[in-house]
């Protein structure tokens, strides 16, 4: 039978004002994939940082293979056979793959030998990677491979993965899972953190569920439904978004032959996109990342100007209008990147509210900002969208990802737009917050707005869209009614000319 690899007993860690972990105990067996589940802020990251030696628990004990284990720093943890793949990659853009790998090892061989070993391991596990490439040029999936190979080269007994799939395409997720299953078959234990419950059901043997820093239960993911797991995480019934079928109204937004070059160096140009969105409709746009999603949002938000006729709002050509003029007309948008694009990280929530809402909420009078009005607007958003923050004068950076996402989406929805465009509205957001955001989008549509949701989460699109279209290399497929669309049909719409291939792993 399997034996216990790592046992946690009564781990507690408090930060000023919050208790991140309270009396957390569970065991990880050798060769099992163990899921750690919880909402944003449930204390998952703090817990794995304790295991990896980045955080020192206030009390409690850990035992590794029966021996007391209390790493003072990541080096000690690595020496004990623990490796970690970080949520935000801990890579160095300007350095090569081999140099990055060397930096994560205690006692690396000379770079030339290391390059050979990287090639060996990458072939063995079906993770193709050239050791001489500069990491800054790699895709998100390839960058994650660098981290994984860095871990594998040290023959870890326990591999910790913190939300590894949030930046990956479905194909890359498949490759990753093959690798993890192979590792498991070799006896490596994996501690897997994710929000994506279906993934956990497909991959993990057991799951421990955290809520507000405490263990609230465990389960065998294969034997329970995703909904049951989500309800254990939330500690209540999960609200599934419902839509009331609204009347199909007039065409509010029309794209006609929208073509534009990408403003980014390695971006995808938009090619001849034509589509209509009616009042009360939600158009879901799917596609693998990097097929023109960012560019489409820029063209719709007004950050990227086009020929006036290419974008028409209520029949009026607006392709040449900048973002604030479009907001003034009633067309709001929320981009994917929360920090730095949707919100200014070091400005307060009321300042961020004023920046986007100044036109429609009349927050500027005679050239002066109405700060009282901005604060009121911000506190309404916080209130209505359940944004967890001490107040309107906290900077955007201080909010967790999910909370900030609720704030930026709420900010646009509460401006009562006629057309709303959002990109990845629930990216990195936990289940209950995601449900709340989707419900708000549906409510907006029910009240007669036209909504475009760009997302890579197909389940999300199927749940909220009336019509579905796919972006592929900058071209948009003809929209089809979402109800009754099968996954195979969606796959064909997305597929196009993608020649991505799942690497074959020799088990």
């Amino acid at each position: 039978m399997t034996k216990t690899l790592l046992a946690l007993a009564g781990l507690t860690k408090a930060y000023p004002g919050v208790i991140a972990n309270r009396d957390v105990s569970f065991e990880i067996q050798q060769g099992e994939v163990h899921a750690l589940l919880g909402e944003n802020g449930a204390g998952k990251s703090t817990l794995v940082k304790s295991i990896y030696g980045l955080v020192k628990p206030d009390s409690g004990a850990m035992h590794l293979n029966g021996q007391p284990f209390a790493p003072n720093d990541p080096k000690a943890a690595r020496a004990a056979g623990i490796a970690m793949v970080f949520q935000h990659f801990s890579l160095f853009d300007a350095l090569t793959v081999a140099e990055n790998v060397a930096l994560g090892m205690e006692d690396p061989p000379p770079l030339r030998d290391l390059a050979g070993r990287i090639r060996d391991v990458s072939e063995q596990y079906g993770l193709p990677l050239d050791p001489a490439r500069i990491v800054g040029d790699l895709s998100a999936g390839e960058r994650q491979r660098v981290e994984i190979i860095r871990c594998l080269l040290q023959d870890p007994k326990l591999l910790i993965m913190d939300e590894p799939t949030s930046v990956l395409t479905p194909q890359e997720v498949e490759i990753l899972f093959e690798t993890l299953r192979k590792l498991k078959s070799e006896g490596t234990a994996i501690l897997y953190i994710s929000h994506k419950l279906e993934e956990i059901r497909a991959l993990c043997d057991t799951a421990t569920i955290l809520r507000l820093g405490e263990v609230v239960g465990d389960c065998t993911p294969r034997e329970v439904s995703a909904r049951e797991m989500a309800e254990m995480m939330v500690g209540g019934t999960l609200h599934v978004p419902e839509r009331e079928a609204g009347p199909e109204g007039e065409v509010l937004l029309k794209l006609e032959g929208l073509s534009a070059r990408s403003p980014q160096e390695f971006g995808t140009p938009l090619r001849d996109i034509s589509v209509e969105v009616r009042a009360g409709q939600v158009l879901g746009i799917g596609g693998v990342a990097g097929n023109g999603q960012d560019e489409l949002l820029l063209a719709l938000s007004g950050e990227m100007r086009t020929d006036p006729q290419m974008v028409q709002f209520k029949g009026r050509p607006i392709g040449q209008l900048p973002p604030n003029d479009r907001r003034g007309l009633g067309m709001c948008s929320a981009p994917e990147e929360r920090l730095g694009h949707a919100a200014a990280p070091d400005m307060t929530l009321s300042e961020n509210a004023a920046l986007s809402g100044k036109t429609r909420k009349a927050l500027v009078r005679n050239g002066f900002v109405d700060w009282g009005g901005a604060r009121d607007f911000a506190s309404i958003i916080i209130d209505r969208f359940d944004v967890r923050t001490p107040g309107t004068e906290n900077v955007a950076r201080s909010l967790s990802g999910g909370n900030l996402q609720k704030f930026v989406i709420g900010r646009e929805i509460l401006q009562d737009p006629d057309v709303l465009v959002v990109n990845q509205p629930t990216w990195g957001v936990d289940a209950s917050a995601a449900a709340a955001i989707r419900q708000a989008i549906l409510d907006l549509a029910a009240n007669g707005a036209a909504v475009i949701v760009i997302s890579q989460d197909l389940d999300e699109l199927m749940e909220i869209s009336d019509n579905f279209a796919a972006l592929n290399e900058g071209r948009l497929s003809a929209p089809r009614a979402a109800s009754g669309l099968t996954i195979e049909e969606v796959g064909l719409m997305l597929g196009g000319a993608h020649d991505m291939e799942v690497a074959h792993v020799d088990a």
Partner: protein
Amino acid sequence: MDLSSINPLLLLASLMVASTPILLAALGELVAERAGVLNLGVEGMMITGAACGIIFSALTGNAWVGFAGAALGGLLLSFLFAVLTQVLLSNQVATGLALTLFGLGLSALLGQSFADARPPAFPKLDMPILSDLPVLGPVLFRHDGMVYVGLLLVVAVWYFLTRTRAGLILRAVGENHEAAHALGYRVVLIRFGAIMFGGACAGLGGAYISLVRVPQWTEGMTAGAGWIALAIVVFAGWKPVRLLLGAYLFGGVTVLQLNLQAAGLAIPVEYLSMSPYVATILVLVILAAGRAPGSLGKTFHASR
């Protein structure tokens, strides 16, 4: 105008001497910047080094002791910068500017009573056979020891940064200090080392001006050499070998324009005086600047 008064061999020979102060200071700053620290106090550390060099050599009568003292002076000043920026988390740009002003004042105070001091002679090395080579001998092999120390340092820094693990870690810290911290590297400690190496090099560069180039103490005698060193680091794309190129180019055009001025070339002196700056910037821009270290100038705090 009499161009025949310019001896090309002497010109080439003096190029290496003229470049050495900037080369030393820029090399130190390069290491600090590769570790992610922007220290704008190079000028202040250089002038402090110049004053310390005079003081220590006048007191001991030995130029090498003078250089050692200058390195120590620059190092101490940079230690102050390191404590302010790395421990107390002050802004690097503001602190660096303050360091320059502080160094100018401090050196004036220290050097006051040494205005008349003459530094001891700093002998040129006599290398058997090599020094007697025709052409190459006078150009390359009849300089004083510091010229070669500077060259050796360039090679040493290049080797350190590109070939050693410690150098890789230093570059990693400069590239992404958060990631380096997450991997368990001591960001602040490594930066302290890099800053102090930079300070010692700047001190050496300053002392080369006061002990060899001029040689005597005058207030403000570095006259902006520290700023040139800073600029050369950027234009050299943070690469040691290109840094050598930039420093020699700057030194070369400086010597040439002085010679041209002496020869009475019919161009306003102002144009000649600005030519080294223009030439250096032009050439290094054409060579295309490299990419700055990712964490350059950013304050690091290990918040958890």
